């Protein structure tokens, strides 16, 4: 197997995730897109850990844990907004600008 086949797969996932966060306006969907991006990173780490030892795996484990925490916090904020505004349409949040 080539190194690049994994790295390019991860780059594609990263890019798709980026597309998602720019285009999706439902808050939950944006969070899902973020998961794509973070998983892309993990693939990179694991790939490189085949060269340089377990540090990459440890890094990936930390990333998984932190990503989970981030999603939890993100959902809490989205829920908060939903409760106040009855909508999770983040495109409509533009009270502060300029």
């Amino acid at each position: 197997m080539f190194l690049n086949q994994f790295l390019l797969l991860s780059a594609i996932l990263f890019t798709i995730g980026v597309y998602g966060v720019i285009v999706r306006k439902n808050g939950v969907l944006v969070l899902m897109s973020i998961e794509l991006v973070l998983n892309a990173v993990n693939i990179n780490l694991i790939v490189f850990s085949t060269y340089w030892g377990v540090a990459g795996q440890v890094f990936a484990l930390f990333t998984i844990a932190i990503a989970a925490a981030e999603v939890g916090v993100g959902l809490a904020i989205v829920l908060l907004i939903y409760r106040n505004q009855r909508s999770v349409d983040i495109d409509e949040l533009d009270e502060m600008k300029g």
Partner: protein
Amino acid sequence: MWFFTHVWIIPALMALSFLLILFFGKKMPKKGAEIGIVFVGAAFVLALLTGGNWIAWSNNNPEGHGPAAEGAALANVDPSCSSVAAEAAAVGEGVEHVEGKTEGKTAGKKAGEGHNEGGHSTEGATAAAPPIGESAAPAAPAAPAATEPAGAEKGGHEEVATRPVVSCINWFENGDQTISIGTLVDGQSVLLLIVVTLISLLVHVFSTDYVHGDRRYTHYFAFLSLFTASMLFFVLSENTLQMIVGWELVGVCSFALIGHWWEEKPNSDAALKAFLTNRVGDIGLLVGVIVLYFAAGKSFSIMDLNILANEGEISHNLLLIGSLCLITAVMSKSGQFILHTWLPDAMAGPTPVSALIHAATMVVAGVYMVARLYPVFFEGLSISGSSVNALSMIGAITALFGAMLAFVQKDIKKVLAYSTVSQLGFMVTALGVGAWTAALFHLFTHAFFKACLFLGAGSLSHACHHSFNMVDDMGGLRKIMPKTFWTYLVATAALAGVFPLSGFWSKDEILAGTGSFPGTEGANGEYHVMLVMLLLAAFCTAAYMTRTIWYAFYGEYRGHGTPHESGPRITTPLIILASLGAIAGIVNLPAAFDFLPEGTQTRFEHYVEPVGLYFPAISHAGFNPALAVISVLVGLSGIGLAYLYFFKDAFAGLHGLAERNKVAAFFKNILVNKYYFDWLYTTVIVGFVKGPLARAANWFSANVIDGTVNLVGKTAVGSGSWVYKNVDQKVVDGAVNGAGSSASGVGAMLRLTQTGRIQQYAALFFAAVAILAGVFVVVIG
């Protein structure tokens, strides 16, 4: 010596005064004014004592010349403040240190001084006597005097070395480097000490009446004290970093004082404008100081910098860059052309503040800074032996420009403001052409008569219901306010350069310093353009001041209510200042006046001009009677023309007063003058000489003289008002404001990018990531 090492007490007194007034002022019977006066009085006495000691010190320290003496002159420099000076002082003979080019320069300088010294030496040399000096001076830097130091010895063996006394303490450490804070005492700083404390004292006294009953009376005095303290701190600066702090403090205080009556929006706007314009220059100062810091081998010390610059150990390019940066600072602080616009606006402050700002403190800071770091400019701009440079050009343009603009102002304070701009232009030109002493001398004399004029204007407005509009709200005050009138008249005459008032002597010295006029070969270069521009400026100065006198004191009273003479607390300072303005010139009578008793000529130069390695080898232009006569004539013709212009109009009494402020009215005045000339020629001349000669004379009078008067008047007024309306108000002010409004326009546009929508932010974020990464990946790989 005690006075020189403890001179820090003077600014400290004023700072203490500020704190005391701030904390206890309101509880005092006189609301804090008495604290200010007592402290500034004490500061003045101390400054006088320091000055007296300085004179005694200078007289009692006769030194020889040559490199050894130059080094010895630095013996009172604390080694911890200036390593270079300490080194120079330590080198016994100083010859190893001061070699080659420097040695030639130093000796050449002495030869130049010899020329001036010759005038009052007991050997009975006459003005034309010292051929040694005259021959050596023009080629001062290149003089092969190293081979003939005797020439210097002969001419100047009576010269005394005025030593700088530098003391400092450790301020802070920056890495392995110690930055000190301290005082530099030499003639220049002592002079400013006396001037600043004196003017400040008089302004304090004046203010007790002038701002009486003001609701921020206590604040006002607190800031007067702080302002004075800042200026004194700046003046005594031992290093450039300290200078920046003082410089900025002065700016901050002026902000507070200009905006003192902030209830009116224009006042607070003016304060902001003054401050912001000054910020532009501050940046120049900062960058310049940092450049010079590296140029001087990582040292902020003024001594180090000056000595190294003087000895040619700093590359010319670095000095040029540094001096150009500093010139930006001078342009803003000293109101030089393009950045001068804040100065007239700053008239919004209380008048005594204007007097303080214009006469002794803020605006002269720029001039003082150039004088302090003179070797940087002298070498960086190649002042010696040239005929044009940035400094002198800016000064000359400002001198002429400001004088023309003063012509068309209605507000008496704005006339004075533009007048200050113009006079600062004189000083800057003088520095630019190498006439260091003349510049400082003019600073000295100008302080008195300009302070007198401003306080006089304050007295007038005090009488006329706080209006400064001399065209509409004043007039005929000569009888009502005799003290104000006479002091104002004297100060005006001094400003116009009427012999023998102080302005005459200092202005003449500047004119001679340009080295353009035949017979002033002792100067550093030949600045022909500057001489012409300064003469024109001098002409305009005389004329617009006459105009002011006319509007304020002659004709009929046009304002409201009944004007009255001001009280003694206002008039006493006026009288003191007017007297000083009249007689201050005697401190620097030309060396050529050898009929005077010994030791009365060039005293100012003698005590104020620094001696030592930290000052460049400038030479002095001699007094030239022809030039003096011309300058007086120029001044008198300015007065005369304006006299015909305004006063004769009054005799005619035909025109409505309201019309006077219109340009059309000026043309009418010209017509009136024509009648006057008609009268002169028909009755006086024709009465004596009849026939063709008379007719010819009549024709001459009707066509040539009238035409000339007409033309001159029209041109002066027309160009003045055109320049005011189009250049000053539109172009210069517009550019200054335009830069601001375009910046805020761009800001408004950029603000639209902040849409508030997260996903546009996200798009921008990732687009920026892609672009930044893409560019660098492609470019660097």
